[in-house]
């Protein structure tokens, strides 16, 4: 039984690689698998295909891995820290903060804040990303600041939810005063996408996600102790406040970076930790952190491939796929899982 987590992790690593290879082979322009293979083994390839693979397919696959891993680990952190199986990476309002930043940049063209962002010469993609990151960071700082005055973790959760609602309200306000073109642009951002990133973008996204995962792995033993509740954890010497801060920072950095580059991607953060727990079978975060990361990468990669609708002309928005495919899967898995049966017996 000791070896089960190792087996699961090994399988997931292989799956991550396999789905990435699959994703690189799929796109709106057909590229024969032999060409792709030649590209990776250093053979000579038609320059157009090389550019497509290098500039379009590879960044997209890398983004799906990073975003999936980051969101899944962030969701795991939030679920453990708040002892809430319905928590997701955006529960503290991080995604709402990023959305507000983007809304100000896109919709607030005439307002003071929008003018500020435009004045920085930052509209267009760079501006969108910066605005989203700034918004997420602002919410993070607010939550951390308020967290110092608040003892109970439930209160912190409520603060996060309230901040989320407040920023959503502000976004609605901006939407009301905008014209249809800009609203559409904001809505399209909200549908989520892993296709819009370039290699310079990944130079920011990769360190952010890796930093968050490393931080999560660092506090994994303490997170195990926190499964017994904050009081027991404190009685065992866990620095609960510091662990909580580290977890919130890791979540905000990962969720904020992913939202900045990909828009708000739903569902992955809430569902993958549950899937990871079910497959690993243990509550040990030292296995759950890497398992969530790898499983998140696999799940989002598959969703991105499906969203491409290979063979058809249209392309689905990413959030439609993550929700439509994922929700039934998790519900089905939960219905069959032993944890639920165990819970019913107690």
């Amino acid at each position, binding site marked *: 039984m000791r070896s089960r987590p190792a087996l699961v992790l090994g399988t997931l690593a292989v799956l991550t690689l396999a789905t990435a290879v699959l994703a690189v082979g799929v796109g709106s322009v057909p590229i024969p698998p032999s060409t792709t293979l030649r590209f990776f083994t250093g053979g000579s390839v038609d320059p157009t295909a090389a550019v497509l693979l290098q500039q379009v397919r590879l960044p997209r696959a890398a983004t799906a891995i990073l975003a999936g891993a980051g969101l899944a680990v962030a969701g795991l952190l939030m679920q453990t820290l708040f002892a809430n199986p319905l928590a997701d990476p955006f529960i503290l309002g991080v995604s709402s903060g990023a959305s507000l930043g983007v809304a100000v940049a896109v919709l607030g063209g005439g307002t003071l804040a929008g003018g500020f962002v435009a004045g920085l010469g930052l509209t267009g993609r760079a501006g969108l990303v910066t605005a989203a990151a700034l918004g997420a960071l602002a919410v993070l700082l607010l939550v951390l600041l308020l967290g110092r005055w608040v003892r109970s973790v439930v209160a912190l959760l409520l603060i996060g939810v309230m901040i989320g609602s407040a920023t959503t309200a502000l976004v609605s306000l901006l939407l009301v005063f905008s014209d249809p073109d800009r609203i559409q642009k904001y809505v399209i951002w909200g549908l989520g996408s892993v296709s819009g990133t370039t290699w310079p973008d990944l130079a920011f996204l990769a360190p952010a996600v890796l930093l968050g995962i490393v931080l999560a792995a660092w506090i994994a033993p303490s997170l195990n102790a926190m499964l017994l509740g904050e009081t027991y954890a404190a009685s065992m010497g866990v*620095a609960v406040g510091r662990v909580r801060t580290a977890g919130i920072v890791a979540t905000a950095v990962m969720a904020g970076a992913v939202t900045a580059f990909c828009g708000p991607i739903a569902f992955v953060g809430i569902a993958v930790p549950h899937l990871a727990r079910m497959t690993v079978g243990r509550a040990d975060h030292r296995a759950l952190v890497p398992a969530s990361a790898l499983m998140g990468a696999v799940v989002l990669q598959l969703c991105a491939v499906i969203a491409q609708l290979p063979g058809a002309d249209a392309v689905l928005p990413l959030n439609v796929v993550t929700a439509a495919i994922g929700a039934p899967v998790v519900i089905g898995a939960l219905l069959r899982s032993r944890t639920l049966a165990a819970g019913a017996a107690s």
Partner: protein
Amino acid sequence: MTARDLEVDGLTVGYPVRRGLVRADRVILRDVSLRASAGRITVLLGPNGAGKSTLLRSIAGLQHPLAGQVNLAGEPLAGLDPRTRATRLAVVLTERFDPGLLRGGDVVALGRFPHRQRTGSFTAQDRRAVDDGLAAVHAQDLADVMLARMSDGQRQRVMIARALAQSPGLLLLDEPSAFLDAPARVELLAVLRRIAAERAIPVVASTHDVEAAVQWGQDGWLIGPGATVSSGPVRTLASNGAIGAAFDTAEVAFDPGTGRFRLRGPAASDSGP
């Protein structure tokens, strides 16, 4: 008196309250001095709301005392960082948590957290502490059982095993028999007495069950009227009327002779077999 006793010296416990710029702390117990002997079980008694939990949590370092000192085996507990303090004492609380996927063995192994290296690997010493903890409460067969499937009594034993796996010099339990039936309560007190003796540590347990405490306890701390605290062998506290003074109401009185509560007045003649 041994070198490994718990000494509470002039402890004042309560909650700090700040009204504007003025501190107007809410004091629960004032200037308490007590001793819990190593190798023996000390039961902490008192009516509801008297401050038993507050006292235990203050000793355990889960909340700050307002004044005074707590020493264990001669070492003050106040100045210790949380991790070191966790190697000195362990607690069993009434708090419940979502069992999730945890098994009995996982929970007990978590008790080794304060002793673990940064790398988190499980040493032979850790393994032995876990096994000893499970053995002390006869819970070896619960190691592979999911917590979600255990009864309250089984879960309680696992939590005690976890506290023992911490290799503490002091064991504090807050209402450990709260969810147990009568035989289980008696069995628990017997187990705690054995643990205290075998490990030569003080064990302090608060309880509502005065009658079982009087029958099976050894030493006692009693929070009486006016937030006064008296201590001594629990039978003495019963016979000298201290328990009666603390608990008697208009309807009910504690009988030192039988060690039980009885109803006062005409209905009293209906009691008994």
